[in-house]
């Protein structure tokens, strides 16, 4: 199958999903609890993934994700159907996550790195059968450096990378989610990567030998 065929097939699947979501939204508007539950089942993991990617806190992400669905439910009437339901839902999630971060900063609480994220990354980096202990240590160190570099990004930069890389949204979809133009999306994504490079530069300049690869697992999808 060619890439053209794949794209066409993907387009068809998206169109079908969009139509399905619209139907479910209509039913939910009419009070169909099962329809709304279906929407929750379809998008709960994705919404949580976005929230966790931005907030990096299990508790905050869990609350934000649930809150996003509540807000969506309460505002179903405002959903005009111009865009896909999930981009509207993701926008709510993004706004709530940013609100959580602001609230967190106001209360001067640090809740980063809760959950399985870093622990998992370190485990994976260390789980390299047949490698020398020194090399394993190097990989763990690199995993920590990479994790910290991501944490240093601004909220908006981290959010845009999450939307792009975790959710795999297209530029237009990201523009809808973030409420900015497509050009701004591209520019922000570029600067996010650039800043990430800058944060990692000291590690490279210090003469550390970068392992050929660090063992990663594919991100879970809904």
């Amino acid at each position: 199958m060619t890439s053209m065929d794949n794209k066409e097939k993907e387009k068809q699947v998206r169109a079908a999903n969009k139509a399905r979501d619209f139907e479910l939204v209509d039913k939910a508007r009419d009070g169909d609890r099962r329809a709304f539950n279906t929407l929750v089942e379809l998008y709960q993991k994705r919404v949580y993934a976005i929230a966790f990617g931005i907030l990096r806190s299990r508790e905050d992400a869990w609350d934000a994700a649930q809150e996003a669905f509540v807000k969506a439910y309460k505002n179903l009437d405002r959903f005009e159907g111009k865009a896909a339901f999930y981009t509207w839902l993701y926008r709510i999630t993004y706004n709530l996550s940013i609100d959580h971060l602001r609230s967190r900063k106001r209360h001067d609480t640090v809740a980063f790195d809760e959950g399985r994220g870093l622990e998992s990354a370190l485990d994976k980096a260390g789980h390299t059968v047949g490698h020398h202990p020194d090399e394993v240590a190097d990989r763990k160190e690199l995993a920590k450096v990479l994790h910290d570099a991501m944490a240093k990004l601004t909220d908006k930069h981290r959010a845009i990378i999450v939307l792009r890389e975790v959710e795999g949204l297209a530029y237009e979809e990201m523009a809808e989610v973030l409420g900015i133009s497509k050009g701004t999306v591209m520019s922000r994504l570029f600067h996010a990567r650039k800043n990430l490079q800058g944060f990692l530069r000291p590690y490279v300049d210090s003469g550390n030998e970068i392992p050929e690869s660090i063992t990663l697992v594919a991100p879970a999808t809904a």
Partner: protein
Amino acid sequence: MAQRETQSKGFQVDELLREQSQSALQDLAPRFEGFCEAVLLRLDDDSDPEYERVLRTDDVSEDERLDAGLIDNEAFEMIGGYLREEVHTACEGLDWAAFSQGITDGIDAEASMVEVGALLKANTGAETAGLDWASFSQGISDGIDAEVSMADTAMSEVRPLLRAEALDEQGGLDWAAFSQGIMDGIEAEEAQPAIAAALREQASEAVAAREGQWDQFSAGVMASLPAETVTVAELLGEETEAELATRDGEWNAFSARVFEAVDAEERLADKAPLEAQAILQMKSEVGAEVEALSPKFGEDFKRGVEKEIFRSAQQPESWWSQAWSWVQETLQGGMGPGFMAAAAAAVVLIMVTGLPDGEQSVPQIAAAGPSGQVAVQQISFEGDVTVMPEEGVTVVWLHAPS
């Protein structure tokens, strides 16, 4: 013609005389050989040039003999004696009959030669007597002149013709093109050696640069040859078999997908720069987190959402929340800065004065009643009804078919 015949006859006579003379001399030779040797031996012994001269000269006059002191010279007499004696001795062994015959034959031969000569002369005279030598010579001169004249005439006629032809030929030629052709040819001749030299130089440099690498090159070529003959399908087949062998016993639908995903990510990570690896790791972290919470998704999450929906419905929305929502909605609607300022001012006004009575008509599902038991006498509703008892609160969902 007569002259040629005379010459021919003359040659024949000479040849004949030469043969006869040689034959006669060959016959006499052995006899003279001993005689002459004996004379020469005597001369050598005395080695007197004067004697030699006298001995060798027969016609020495009397006066000369006297001047030379040879007359009445005992030595001379002695030599003469010797000579006579020698000659006598030599002559004693001679066959005088044959000798005489030889002489006679010789004389005869001479006589015949004279006759032949006379004959030849007579013939030649007869032959040449009738010839007009002047006209003969003139004829020869004329012939020579004629040959020369013919050659000159021929050349004088041919040359103008050749010139005319050459001129005609030249007239039809495009001299500019001809010259250009020559120049091109010359330039090509000049350029070719330069190009050839440059090529040689490049080739030499390339060869020099590869000095010592030819073995590797050859080995590479040889190594690539078998690969050329193997099809992609065969290679993939081999790789697949090798992969299957290394993962023997691990295969099922789940592990296959997992390994596939791991391999894909590892390949990606191998090629990715450091910042891309950071992003990949972030994806991995989020994926691991979602996976870790997977059991909680489903009922737990949904109940949490429903509970939040119910609670938010129970609690009337504050005027502040309503105002803020209105402002957000307004901002999202893309109003101008002036309108946004007015909206913000309105919010501030509301914050200061509060909402007027009767405008807190927030939609509510039910007002919170006093705690305790609630008895429901009768509910009449057409559609789906779902009752959810939850932490002391029972939620009743009503779904009316549209």
